[in-house]
């Protein structure tokens, strides 16, 4: 049956539904994406083949059933037959499906073998999941960064109108070159996540303590969106993947640019050690960092989720023990969901967010935390 016919049927019903203003993708997408790689196209073809096989079997089986329901009804006065056995028939409908399966299994196995061949990659990227963000590390360059959901909480809460890429937008997308074999090494810092980009037909679990491999070779430049696919806790639904595929030349320029920027930022950071920032600046930077890095668990109001995530508001550590507070933020708490933010945030951001936590929501310690205080804990001095 035509997909177009089905779409038309559904479009007919849809006038009653609340239609979102032209979103990123087709709201009536009924089928799998063909994607933008050779592999994803093969996967799509397999999907359609098995689908048509199922439709054909369905037509035969349900057709026979419907025929019996219409013509072999008691109300038509038919006399029931008494046959109830036929070895020939039983053998036939065991063997025929078996042969169909072999026809299905061969191309499936071929595609599977191609998908699992991660050898001879041009670019290798380490993808690390953690609650609830992705970290990308370019193994061939001095470049790494976190990629977080960029949708505003006000949109999720319904205060602002939802944007076109609602929940499918990040602050720093992964950038990869087109026409190159890109290998992903996938792992996790905490629970199991799953890195998924439908357009590449790549979905691989990120297992803590183990590294999985996957690869893609994108044919067309573009922006491709996916999501975490394995339940990973409270904000599992808020952990998108965005990949930008650029032409190789453009990609190389981008990598060089980003790596240089990252080096400069590290140098800037060293200068900060000699400076003191004032309370106003720390609090305003700190609030921003808190909302993006901490609020998911400790909540925007600092009250946490009782029994799950501890409150910072009125917390003993946030009110008194500053070195301990810095230590927890920098190194995390092992065996809990508290991550080590030392490698995720800059010294300035760490200083600002700890200051914020010690002075917001009535935690009025009046103390500032400076970059050098954080650095002292990080370096053990």
């Amino acid at each position, binding site marked *: 049956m035509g997909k177009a016919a089905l779409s038309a049927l559904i479009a007919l019903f849809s006038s009653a539904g609340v239609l*979102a203003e032209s979103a990123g993708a087709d709201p009536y997408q009924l089928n799998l994406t063909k994607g933008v790689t050779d592999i994803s196209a093969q996967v799509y073809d397999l999907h359609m083949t098995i689908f048509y096989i199922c439709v054909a079997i369905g037509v035969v089986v349900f057709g026979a059933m419907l025929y019996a329901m219409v013509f072999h009804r008691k109300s038509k006065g038919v006399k029931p037959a008494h046959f109830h056995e036929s070895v020939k028939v039983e053998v036939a409908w065991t063997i025929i499906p078996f042969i169909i399966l072999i026809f299905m299994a061969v191309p499936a196995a071929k595609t599977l073998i191609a998908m699992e061949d991660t050898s001879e990659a041009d670019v290798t990227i380490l993808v690390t999941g953690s609650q609830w963000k992705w970290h990308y590390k370019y193994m061939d360059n001095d470049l790494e960064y976190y990629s977080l959901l960029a949708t505003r909480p006000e949109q999720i809460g319904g205060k602002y109108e939802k944007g076109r890429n609602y929940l499918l937008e990040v602050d720093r997308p992964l950038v990869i070159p087109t026409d190159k074999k890109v290998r992903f090494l996938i792992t996790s810092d905490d629970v199991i996540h799953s890195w998924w980009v439908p357009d590449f037909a790549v979905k691989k679990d990120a297992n803590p303590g183990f590294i999985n491999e996957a690869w893609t070779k994108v044919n067309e430049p573009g922006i491709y969106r996916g999501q975490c696919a394995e339940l990973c806790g409270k904000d599992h639904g808020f952990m998108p993947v965005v990949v930008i595929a650029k032409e190789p030349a453009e990609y190389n320029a981008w990598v060089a640019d980003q790596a240089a920027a990252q080096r400069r930022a590290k140098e800037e950071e060293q200068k900060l050690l000699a400076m003191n920032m004032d309370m106003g600046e720390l609090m305003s930077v700190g609030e921003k960092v808190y909302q993006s890095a901490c609020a998911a668990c400790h909540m925007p109001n600092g009250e946490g989720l009782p029994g799950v995530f501890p409150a910072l508001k009125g917390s003993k550590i946030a009110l008194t023990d500053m070195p301990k507070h810095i230590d927890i933020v920098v190194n995390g708490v092992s065996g809990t969901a508290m991550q080590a933010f030392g490698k995720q945030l800059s010294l300035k951001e760490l200083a600002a967010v700890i200051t914020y936590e010690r002075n917001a929501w009535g935690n009025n310690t009046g103390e500032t935390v400076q970059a050098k205080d954080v650095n002292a804990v990080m370096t053990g001095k």
Partner: protein
Amino acid sequence: MSTVADDLHHDDHHDHKPSGIKRWLYTTNHKDIGTLYLWFAFIMFLIGGAMAMVIRAELFQPGLQIVDPNFFNQMTTVHGLIMVFGAVMPAFTGLANWMVPLMIGAPDMALPRMNNWSFWILPFAFLILLSSLFLEGGGPNFGWTFYAPLSTTYSNDSTALFVFSVHIMGASSIMGAINVIVTIFNMRAPGMTWMKMPLFVWTWLITAFLLIAVMPVLAGAVTMVLTDKFFGTSFFDAAGGGDPVMFQHIFWFFGHPEVYIMILPAFGIISQIVPTFSRKPLFGYSSMVYATTSIALLSFIVWAHHMFTTGMPLFAEMFFMFATMLISVPTGVKVFNWVATMWRGAISFEVPMLFALAFIVLFTLGGFSGLMLAITPVDFQYHDTYFVVAHFHYVLVTGAVFSIMAAVYYWLPKWTGKMYDETLAKWHFWCSLISVNVLFFPMHFVGLAGMPRRIPDYSLQFADFNQWISIGGFAFGLSQFIFLALLLKACRKEGEPVSDKVWDGAEGLEWEIPSPAPYHTFETPPVVK
């Protein structure tokens, strides 16, 4: 066998049983215990259904409106646990309790006191599970599959209650299974040879062996979760030499046979109902028995098809793909046999038959999506999306649950002696059939379009279909109150009295005892020719 039926009428005169609550607490009667199981399952079905309503209300439109994500995760988790362990499994056990002795001509289950116990620990298991929702931090929120380390290091302390409740459910299931096996092995009426047993009895016998094989594996899995979380072991923690993927292997070694535990008795029920209303013997009885056995055996070697994205070696992916595809062969044989049974029969469409026909079509749809999911390279796209949610709801709701409803309509007149309210029954069927498809069919579309499962909020492209899905969900939920009304009427013994045989095409020992079935039956065994 008519002499047997005459004997049985005497039983009415010595129904010694305590009255009131004591009757139900102390009962060792298979019919009473069957009734308890069935009501318990129905109550759990409504509670688990209420949780599904919370989920669908939150997903009615994009954004977070009604519940927070942590509570949403508790709802998906406990909905799954309740429907699997509280609704479907106890309902089948209830049907086995009522019907297995009646179908094989036994006076009761072989181990009646254990029967009482295996039921009465169940309410406590679910009390523990449900009460954990009210603790600080809430109940289990890691999915009914409780993957480590989300359920260990990253869960809250209510996990202990979850573990204990699963242990109790497992103990109950194992005792129920032992009882079924012992009863069928030892208490068949003279002349009831293996290959004369009704298919419901056969499928339950095989199911009981599956239960005994895999419930201890589940017990092991939850115990390891308990010690990893509270006692410092590292079964599933790489930092201590463990492996989180090993948890999934252990869980699905239990989980996949569990799937067949929830569908084999359904096959049995459909194999009873279709011949009755086609007025023609079941086509391919012995091939049905062999198909059921091979499905059960294959169920032990396909578990890792739930785990294709975990990064298994290529060889393992191939093996589990081929083994899984193989299951469609015996499953297909069953469907073909049902259709061949209907072929050139004299079909009528009483409500049990309506549910059975819906089962055949919709379960087969779920089977088709299952076959698609077996193809590893494509599974990478389907895995953990709404396509999977659509698949397992087709096999479990329009499969297992519809078969249970079919069974209740089929045997209810035998249990109460009165015909159920046919108007209500037809309303229940048609409302359920339409709404369940509005509910689950569009899930295929959003899944293929890329909507992950277990998310409390979604991007805008999925909004319209989710609205339809939620509307279907509410309608399906409401339709079940028609069923409740019908059951309450049946319990008050309203309706037309029925004959002993109830259905003109029915065959089997259960139709040769009086309607309603007396408290004690087959005290002298019937002789099967």
